[in-house]
């Protein structure tokens, strides 16, 4: 069972397809919601916060959206991965499927949504007359590192959430803190210099900064920020894989 890669690939494709179709099956607008949701949130935030910080930030909608889509991807992908075991509990207790397949598929599913949100960013940049930069191509690097980070965090969370069902609630709060420590809708300069240190330690903020540098400001990402993100991502990934491989076979008993 599941000895070859192509068997796993086919299963992965089926799982992602299942999630995508079930998400939109009953809504009239269907997949369009993937566009509307971030767009509406962006409008609300722009309306509120451009009054507060508008003067400090050039092109607030693009500044906000570029951070928001990264945060959204991280947030929903880690949460999806965290719940992947419990959500498929009935299946995991009935047939043998490698359990990490469900964690991977949850992340892949959110990655598809993330790609869709790029279209919105593109559209908003077009409308607001933002400049497009050739350096945008380098955004692939922080995104790739972010995906590795998410896999690591997701695998750890999936194990913890299976053993302790209140980890989900704690993580919700943690994710909220992470959002405020990512400078999504305000400039980092308004934060006291001492607190800025904390921001630079937040790997999500590093990812957002690198992404903004490539796409919004048209410069190459800061090397030390990128290296920090890479180190963090690979460490977390290593820990996640290790933890998951230790507990994978015991998980079915805890579901």
């Amino acid at each position, binding site marked *: 069972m599941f000895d070859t890669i192509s068997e796993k690939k086919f299963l992965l494709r089926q799982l992602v397809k*299942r999630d995508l179709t*079930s998400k939109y099956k009953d809504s009239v607008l269907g997949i369009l919601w993937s566009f509307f949701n971030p767009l509406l949130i962006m409008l609300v935030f722009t309306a509120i916060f451009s009054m507060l910080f508008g003067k400090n930030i050039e092109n607030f909608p693009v500044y906000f959206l570029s951070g928001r889509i990264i945060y959204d991807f991280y947030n929903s992908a880690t949460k999806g991965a965290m719940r992947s075991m419990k959500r498929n509990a009935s299946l995991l207790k009935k047939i*043998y499927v490698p359990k990490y397949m469900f964690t991977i598929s949850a992340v892949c599913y959110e990655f598809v949504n993330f790609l869709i949100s790029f279209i919105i960013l593109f559209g908003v940049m077009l409308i607001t007359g933002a400049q497009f930069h050739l350096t945008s191509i380098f955004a692939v690097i922080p995104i790739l590192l972010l995906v590795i980070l998410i896999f690591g965090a997701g695998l750890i969370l999936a194990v913890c959430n299976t053993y302790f069902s209140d980890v989900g609630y704690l993580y919700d709060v943690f994710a909220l803190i992470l959002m405020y420590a990512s400078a999504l809708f305000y400039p980092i300069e308004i934060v006291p210099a001492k607190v800025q240190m904390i921001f630079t330690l937040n790997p999500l903020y590093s990812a957002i900064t690198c992404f903004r540098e490539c796409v919004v400001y048209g410069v190459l990402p800061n090397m030390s920020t990128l290296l920090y993100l890479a180190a963090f991502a690979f460490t977390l990934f290593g820990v996640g894989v290790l933890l998951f491989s230790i507990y994978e076979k015991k998980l079915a008993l805890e579901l």
Partner: protein
Amino acid sequence: MKILNKIKNYITHDEVNVAALEDNVVVNVEHVTMEFKITKDKIDTLKEYVIRTIKRNKKEKEKVRVLDDITFKVYKGDKLGILGFNGAGKSTLLKVLAGIYEPTSGNIEIKGKVAPLLELGAGFDKNYTGRNNIYLNGAFLSMEKDFLNEKFNEIVEFSELGEYIEYPVKNYSSGMRAKLGFSIATLVEPDILIVDEILSVGDIKFRKKSSEKINEMMSEGVTVLLVSHSIGQIRRICDKCIWIDNGKLVMQGDVDEVCDAYVANAEGEK
């Protein structure tokens, strides 16, 4: 100590492997023990874990031993029946063999492609059409796209669903669901077939067809592990038999011998 045991296991593991090759053993179950924690005093929140750690009250978990030191071997081409009263641990044994549960201790060696016919149609998505579910369910059973494309018509024909294959599964009757599940699960050509009481799904027509299909699969020299409450069925299909009671292996041997003892025991208890 635990590590030492593990290393020891690894070493003996290899020896078992070699022995298995020589003896034509396809399933080798060695001292398998399976314990479940009772749900009611399981610590399943972080809050409780912290509180109990502080109170030093972590001595938790009454454990139920569902399988207790089970050891047996199945040779290539054997048809093994598994007998036991309700709650004896038969289904758990099959789940351990299918890889769903990891045994608490002991070793399991399996050689060859296993087809577990345990839960038919587990993993059906009820909003999906029958057609999409064939691919989804096939993927869960580690089949591949080309294979499913090739066999698609065969599945639809065998399941007798006709045009309903384009309808969502939530509109199916339970019989239709079982028929579709059966048709997908029996597609593979396995070396080892693990069956848990599924020889009878659907109406009388489909029952006949499905047991013919199973007989056909069994007759091709596959190894069969069959759990059933029908003594007649086991006598007919199997040539060897094991009897499990309260998680312990009571008896193993020739099918008639074990069946006779089992029936005598059941009648004696009345």
